């Protein structure tokens, strides 16, 4: 039995199951809800299966069509891919559960196919080792994310989705032009082969610039974050959770892979620039979050800030390899869980009071304790307080910065934490008191509250799972700690 289980192509299941599930939900809207939840659970178990496979047999490799790179397309999963896939599966399950309570039946029927296709596209992206295939998955992710943003309509959501669509298409095209240059320079779009063949040249420089700029735009790194707050704040709550937790991470992941495989040897200055932009994002995003008067906008600006932390890793990595990359891994997964929980909590508040104005939150702690608790737990991780995944991430980052004497980055990390505490307590502080305008509570389904609690608890819990997480992350040596080459 065990032998069969470890033989199964879990990686493929992660792609095929949501695609099939999405099509099935489109064909059978009557049972879409059950099919959707089933699909999300199957994806979660496939992610666990892949994790088990990776820990026992090392990296996962699948040559689609049996051709192998460079002619065919290779799927590849190491510890880093696994981290992203598990993160996606966890958040995906929570969001699926949440959505069944959040959407009215008419919208829920439309939600499932789009969301499951997005889930499949994210998995396909995290498993791909082929730059053009990554472009196709990026477009799948982008278009489904935009369609989900506009799902419930409304003026803000529609204009937010439109701006988002234009930004994401622009980013993809810049990326694709970079792929075109790399293909014609080195005769392949396979990441592994490229990492062997690439030599510093004008083509690589142009590709580096185009792809980085395109992916940074899609990741919403300051100052190219202009599209994120309107889209993430106006989307339906479960969609906001997916956008902030997973979708921006997809383009970040590609940038990281490109960096590790191709660009890190070629340019040191760019890492400094990434660090600078990251620092700008942390400070600007946190300050803007502090200024917001609506919960969802506040949480959206917090995403801008938290993306910044991910980029602080680049300038620290050359000297502090594993510490810095572990910090990034922690920041990635803990932000995904905590931010998804925060958006879900914000959605609960909106459903409960019919608005998300911070000043008018009315006795939430007494009347919606689970939601307030979820927001607080997620806040602990976002602020970087122990014990939480966010704490581990920021602590490791701080260690890396201190060891290299980067006092400027130490200051940014510290200040970002203080500002995060400011905006989290700005919301929490208003949950205890009676608002000037009281309102009758509108009941919020229990599963919407529990889904938020579940993910927030996950963000805390991974703070305790440091050794297994780090062991899995080392499968396949994604960060080239033991020498070059995957």
């Amino acid at each position: 039995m065990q032998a069969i289980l470890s033989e199964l192509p879990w990686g493929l299941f992660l792609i095929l199951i949501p695609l099939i599930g999405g099509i099935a939900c489109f064909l059978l809207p009557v049972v879409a809800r059950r099919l959707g939840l089933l699909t999300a659970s199957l994806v979660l178990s496939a992610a666990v299966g892949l994790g088990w496979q990776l820990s026992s047999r090392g990296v996962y490799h699948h040559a689609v069509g049996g051709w192998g790179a460079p002619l065919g397309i290779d799927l590849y999963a190491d510890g880093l891919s696994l981290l992203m896939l598990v993160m996606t599966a966890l958040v995906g399950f929570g969001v699926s559960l949440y959505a069944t309570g959040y959407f009215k039946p008419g919208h829920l029927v439309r939600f499932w196919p789009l969301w499951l296709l997005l889930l499949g596209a994210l998995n396909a992206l995290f498993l791909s080792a082929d730059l053009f295939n990554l472009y196709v998955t990026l477009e799948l992710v982008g278009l489904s994310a935009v369609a989900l943003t506009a799902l419930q309509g409304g003026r803000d959501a529609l204009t937010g989705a439109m701006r988002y669509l234009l930004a994401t298409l622009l980013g993809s095209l810049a990326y694709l032009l970079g792929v075109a240059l790399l293909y014609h320079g080195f005769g392949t779009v396979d990441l592994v082969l490229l990492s062997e063949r690439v030599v510093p040249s004008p083509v690589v420089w142009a590709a580096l610039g185009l792809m980085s700029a395109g992916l940074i735009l899609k990741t919403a790194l300051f100052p190219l974050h202009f599209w994120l707050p309107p889209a993430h704040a106006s989307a339906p709550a479960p969609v906001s959770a997916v956008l902030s937790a997973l979708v921006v991470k997809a383009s970040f992941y590609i940038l990281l892979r490109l960096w590790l495989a191709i660009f890190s040897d070629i340019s040191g200055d760019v890492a400094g620039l990434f660090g600078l932009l990251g620092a700008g994002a942390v400070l600007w995003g946190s300050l803007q979050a502090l200024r917001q008067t609506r919960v969802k906008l506040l949480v959206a600006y917090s995403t801008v800030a938290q993306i910044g932390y991910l980029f602080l890793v680049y300038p620290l990595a050359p000297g502090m390899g594993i510490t810095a990359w572990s910090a990034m891994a922690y920041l990635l997964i803990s932000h995904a869980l905590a931010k998804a929980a925060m958006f879900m909590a914000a959605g609960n508040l909106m459903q409960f009071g019919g608005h998300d104005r911070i000043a008018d939150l009315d006795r939430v702690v007494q009347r919606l304790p689970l939601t307030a608790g979820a927001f607080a737990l997620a806040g602990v991780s976002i602020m970087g307080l122990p014990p939480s995944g966010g704490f581990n991430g920021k602590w490791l980052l701080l260690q890396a910065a201190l060891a290299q004497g980067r006092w400027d980055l130490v200051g940014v990390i510290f200040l970002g934490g203080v500002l995060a505490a400011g905006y989290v307590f700005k919301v929490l502080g208003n949950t205890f008191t009676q608002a000037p305008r009281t309102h009758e509570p509108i009941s919020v389904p229990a599963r919407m509250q529990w889904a938020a609690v579940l993910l927030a608890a996950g963000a805390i819990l991974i703070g305790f799972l440091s050794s297994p997480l780090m062991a899995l992350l080392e499968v396949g040596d994604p960060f080239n700690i033991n020498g070059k080459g995957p």
Partner: protein
Amino acid sequence: MSVPFLYALVGIGLFCLGFHGLIVYDHLLRKILAINIMGSGVFLVLVALAKRGGEAAPDPVPHAMVITGIVVAVSATALALGLMLKVQAATGHAVLPGKSRD
């Protein structure tokens, strides 16, 4: 300059021209046209450079990639046009509201 490089440079020109249009024009339809022109520029670079080296038949892989790209482009365009019409229905104008407070 050989013909493939000529077309590749035209492709770069279209990319930049489209980029310019995307930034400066307000009407969403024009922004959508601009994105399409940028895309055509990228496709031109992909296909033109595949023909470098003269007489032999060109590399078919970029051709297949561009056919994929054209289908992706028409999909994105259709969604963008639909969204544009909904924006016009919701706001009365097919333009994005002014600078987001930021």
